[in-house]
Every structure is written in C-alpha cells, then in structure tokens.
C-alpha cells in the first residue's frame, strides 16, 4: 500500500468520526509525583503539560517506552489521584449525555455514580482480581448487586447472556478462578468490567504478560466489547503490534510529553517525529531478518528532564533550537483539512517522508541502546 492511499484511508477514518463529540478532554494536564523524604523534596514530572481529546466511539492508543508516563496519564484521565501523585495544573473533562463532568474535582459519590456504568477500568494484571474462594457466577452477582437492584437469578442470567454474546463459554460461571487458564481469567475479568455497558473503557496493558495466542483472544474480545455499544476504548500498551491491530488513533508519549498523535495508519506509515520513526523502525517483523537497531541512549529521568525537547540527547537530527526551546505540539498543515482530528507533532525537524528501512541515519558512534 502506498503512503498516499494510507493517508487517504486515514482521512476516511477521520471523516467517520467527523460528527463524533469528544468524550474525554484533557487540557494542559500536569500530573507530578511529589515526595518529601528527610526534608528533600523530589518532583517527578510524569505527565507534563499534556492536551488531548478522545472522540466518542474510537479506540485510542497510548504508546511509549516504560517510564514515559503512560500509566500516570491513564490515572489522571480516570481521576484516580492518590498521593504522591498530584495534579499541578490543567483539567480533565468527561462529556456523556448529561453535560460535562470534571474528572479531577469529583466527590467520592460522584465517582461512585459513574464508575463501571459510565467509566470502566481494566487494570494491568487484572486476572488476579477475581475472588479465589467464590465461583465466577457469585463474583458476577456480587458485582452487579453492588451497583443496581437485582436478584441472584437475574444477575446470573445477565452474566450468562453477556458471556454468550461475547462468545465465551458460559460453563465458566460454575468454575472457581484457579480452574481457569490465565487467558480465560483475563477475559472473564474484561466481561465483568464491561457488563454494565460503560461508555468509556480504560485498559492499562491488558495483554502484557500473556502469550500471543491468548493475547489475540483478549484483543478480539476488547474489539467485540467496544463494537457492541460503540463505546470509547482508551488502550495503554507499549506493544506497537497491539496498537496496529486494534486502535484507530495513537498518541506517542515520550518523557511525559505527547510528541505525536495521528490515526494509526499514519503513525505506522508516515510518522513525522524522529522518536516515533525509531519506535516503528526498531520493531522486528516476520519475514524480514535485516539488521534492526534499537533506539540509542535511554529515556531521561523525569525528576530532572533535559531542557528544550526532551528527546534531543537521543535524537540524530537535534540542533541548537532543540536544546533551548520546547517544541510546541502543532497540527501538521495540509493534512486533515479541518474535518477529523488533525495529525499533531511536537518537533522542530519533522521528517516528511514515508517510513522505509534506513530512513534515519544510524550514526555509528551512537551509544548502545540501553
């Protein structure tokens, strides 16, 4: 597929979402970890000045290496702020049918009112959340009864119907969690988290630590759940293969900043930020054994990030301006023509070319990718 057709496919995707409204909006969000030990204050700027909007009905991916702020961003978007995490600035708003909700200023009751029914969360390693001494059907009943009027028969019936709809074996209702395989437990947990038909689902590395075959089953289930109610799915994972298979749009985080955001095919075919290009290029592919190089250097410590563009110490294209000024996240001109969400990039030296092997100069004197 040529880059032109890829770009037009992206525009088509954008047009589909044209009338969709934003379900989540974050503006100037700063979520820092502030700790004090022995009178020394330490600030880790895990999410720093981040603005994004997620549209209704889309699958929005958040990508980046470990330690770049993915999980912190998700916590902030969920409004789950627990010390030492502190919101230093900015806001997060949800927009469901009944007006805007400020996610960061909710009381516990407000949160209780929308949790699982409007907003759902699938945590990392979530196969361990099932109660080991209760059968799956009892767990379903406990869960449903905590949120709405129901009898045991009704909630088990509801669970059975839902599992059937998702193509899972309803026999698992009679099992205890330890009798199920890891992948089955994970899928039961996803069914549990989404049975009350939430409009907005956050998933944090839902497939990490799973085998490929199981991972595929879990991702297909997430797709199914999303399609069923046209809900919005926000997916955090470092696995670019999962992003390619599942998402409509991808945001690439680097050291707490959003460095590039575009529809999935543009991110993979025609990324403009040198970091994104490295990220995509370093992936091994089946059927291709040509030498691939990791990204040189390592992400900066977030308590003392470098000045200017945070990627400049690892960037082969860096010049003086990158060391002094923070590049703004701006829409790419001439793409998207105002209809769909624009392709946004934060870089002074954007690369405007389709991605092919060897596009970025791999300087020989670069340090090892550690």
């Amino acid at each position: 597929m040529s880059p032109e057709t890829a770009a037009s496919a992206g525009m088509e995707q954008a047009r589909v979402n044209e009338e969709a409204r934003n379900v989540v909006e974050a503006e100037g969000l700063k979520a820092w970890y502030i700790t004090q030990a022995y009178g020394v204050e330490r600030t880790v700027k895990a999410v720093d000045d981040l603005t994004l909007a997620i549209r209704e009905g889309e699958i929005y991916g958040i990508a980046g290496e470990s330690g770049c702020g993915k999980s912190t961003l998700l916590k902030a978007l969920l409004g789950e702020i627990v010390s030492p995490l502190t919101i230093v600035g900015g806001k997060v708003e949800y927009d469901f049918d009944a007006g805007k909700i400020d996610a960061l200023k909710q009381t516990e009751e407000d949160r209780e009112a929308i949790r699982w029914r409007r907003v759902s969360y699938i945590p990392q390693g979530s196969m361990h959340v099932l109660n080991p001494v209760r059968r799956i059907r009892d767990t379903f009943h406990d869960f449903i009864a905590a949120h709405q009027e129901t009898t045991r028969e009704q909630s088990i019936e509801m669970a059975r119907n839902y599992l059937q709809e998702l193509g899972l074996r309803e026999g698992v209702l009679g099992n205890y969690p330890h009798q199920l395989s890891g992948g089955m437990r994970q899928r039961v947990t996803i069914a549990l988290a989404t049975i009350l038909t939430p409009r907005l689902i956050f998933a944090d590395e839902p497939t990490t630590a799973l085998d490929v075959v199981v991972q595929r089953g879990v991702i297909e289930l997430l797709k199914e759940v999303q399609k069923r109610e046209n809900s919005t799915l926000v997916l955090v994972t470092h696995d670019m293969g999962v992003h390619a298979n599942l998402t409509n749009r991808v945001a690439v985080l680097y050291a707490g900043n959003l460095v590039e955001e575009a529809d999935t095919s543009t991110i993979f075919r025609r990324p403009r930020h040198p970091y994104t290009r490295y990220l995509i290029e370093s992936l091994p592919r089946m059927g291709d054994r040509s030498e691939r190089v990791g990204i040189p250097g390592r992400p900066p410590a977030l308590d003392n990030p470098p000045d200017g563009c945070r990627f400049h110490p690892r960037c082969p294209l860096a010049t003086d301006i990158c060391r002094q000024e923070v590049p703004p996240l701006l829409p790419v001109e001439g793409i998207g023509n105002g209809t769909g969400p624009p392709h946004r990039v934060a870089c002074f030296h954007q690369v405007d070319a389709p991605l092919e092997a060897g596009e970025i100069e791999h300087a020989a004197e670069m340090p090892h990718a550690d």
Partner: protein
Amino acid sequence: MQTDREHSLLSVESLQRVFVTREGFSTTRLEAVAGASFAIRNDRPEIYTLAGESGSGKTTLARLVLGLEHATSGNMYYKGRDVLHLTNKERRDWFLKEVQPIFQDPFATFSPLKRIDSYLYETTRNYKMATTREGIDAHVDEALHAVGLSLAEVRGRYPNELSGGQAQRVSVARALLTRPSLLVADEPVSMLDASLRMSIVNLFRTLRDEHKVSVLYITHDLTTAYYAADRIAVMLRGWVVESGPVENVLGEPLHPYTQNLKNAIPEADPEKTWEGDASLAVMDTEEYTRTGCRYAGRCPAVMDICKTTVPRDIEVQGRSVKCFLYDEEVPEAERTQAMANGAPVA
C-alpha cells in the same frame, strides 16, 4: 529418538520430566517435558530457539539442559559426552564452564546490596580463569567488551545504577567469563522494552558471529526468534511439535498449532490485522493429561485418530512435525479432508 551425538554440540534425546504431586491418597502426574528431542550443531555456532506459550515446558527443558532439574528418562549428550550422569567434579570443572545460563530478569539476578562487578570477579576466581589481580581485571574487561561495555563503566556500580538493558548485558558478560560454547538464555528479553529487546537480540547475533558462542534462546516472542535464530523448536504441553530451520517453521508452518501461533502474532502493520478466531485452551492442565494428541481439543483439522493415538515425528519439507496430517500411514483421503476442514493457511 537418536540424534547425531558425535556431530552435535548438544544433543537432547527423548528427554522426559514428570512432576508428581500427592495430596492425601490422590496422586497427580504432570509430564512437563514429554520425550523432547533436538540437537544444536557443532560445525558452526548457531542460535537455537525453543518457543512456546507459558506452560509449554520450555523453561523446564532449559533447566534440564542446565542440570538444575533431574530428567525422569531420556539422554543428553554435550560434545559427545553423556551429561546426565556426570560426577560433581566433572560437572563443576567442565560442564558448568561450557554451558552458562542467562536469566529472565536482570534485576532479580543481581542482589541490590552488592556491587555488580563483584559477581564478575567472583565468577572469574571461582572458575580459576585468572589468578593475578591484573589478570582478573583484564579477563573481566574482555568479557564486558564483548557485550559493548567496559570495566570502567561498571566498576563499583550497584544494579540500580544501571538501566535494564545494561544490567542484562552485564549478566551476559558474566556468563561469558568462563568462555562457554553454549549460553542458555531463558526469556532474556521479556522484561525489556521493545527497543532494548533488539539490542540484546543483536548482541546474541554478534556473539554467534564474532565470538563463536551458540545460544539456546528460550522465548515466547516469535518475531525476535525469527529475527535472530537459525533453527527453532516449537513446544506445546511438553512436546516438541515442529522443529527445523526458522525460515521453514515460521515462514510456512505445517503443524496446526504453529500456524495458530504464527497467526496470533500482532504484526506492527495496520494493514495486516487478524482474521478469524483464535483457539484457546479453557483450562491449563487439561491438555497435559489428554490421550492422543495434546492439541486435539482445539485443533481445527482434528481427525479421529488424533483423539486416541499419540502422533509420530514426521520428517517433511525440511523439518520434523509431530502431526498425523503428514503421516503417510493415515489414509490420504482422510488427511486431505481434515486439512480442508482446518484450512491451515497455505
């Protein structure tokens, strides 16, 4: 099955490991490795991959190779010598020098309270690789250079001062100190980010090409296996179901399980998304105790014979496949029909 002992670096023959658990009067037997056979060549160094999902027995097999686990039955030869029945002295003075492990999590390998270079000095002294202080320093520095580090960078550092990629490099350097011919690396990259993965996998390629060290690379990540390995053995519930050159086995898999595995890899390409359904085991242990083929329960091309009889290893198209679909003793009409049912991606 007998492999060519004389011309193999490591030859594993019908190796079996059974775990027996007793609860009251009930006894459960779990055959974690069931008659696995493979051989690593001797004439030139190679990267040999053992691939499979969790619970496939690949880690148990690696532990058997390292001698950390006792085999229930079977044979294992290293450089033509029987290594399942070594004396402790032979094991210490010869085998452990020749075969060195690399573990999954570099931060679990090293104590956070000890300087990381002390492991390098200890190994050098324990195996008497050098005696004088200068000799030891030079020996350690040489091993670190082989992995792209130097003693000056590492000396006096604690593990937390190193990044994940660096710590894993140091554990490879530690393994190289005894000048081994074979490294056994159990999921060495699964704790690392994708970008760092490549640097470790590239390191294995360098070690093979420039330092003539073979690597038994155990992983569930088929894309890095394809990238780095020469040959591969795919494991399912203790069996090696398909083995051969990586271009054959992963390029055009024949066993329905390998096909399933390959189709499940999320390709980093938005144009190549999955089609069809994945077939998953509902319960983990069920497949271990199955009579007949252990994949019969979820195989799309299952035949009647698969449910009752254990398939043989069949040599076909440059690889070995444990599947009745390629067994000429099964009537051809039946096999053609089953293949059409399963519609394995050609």
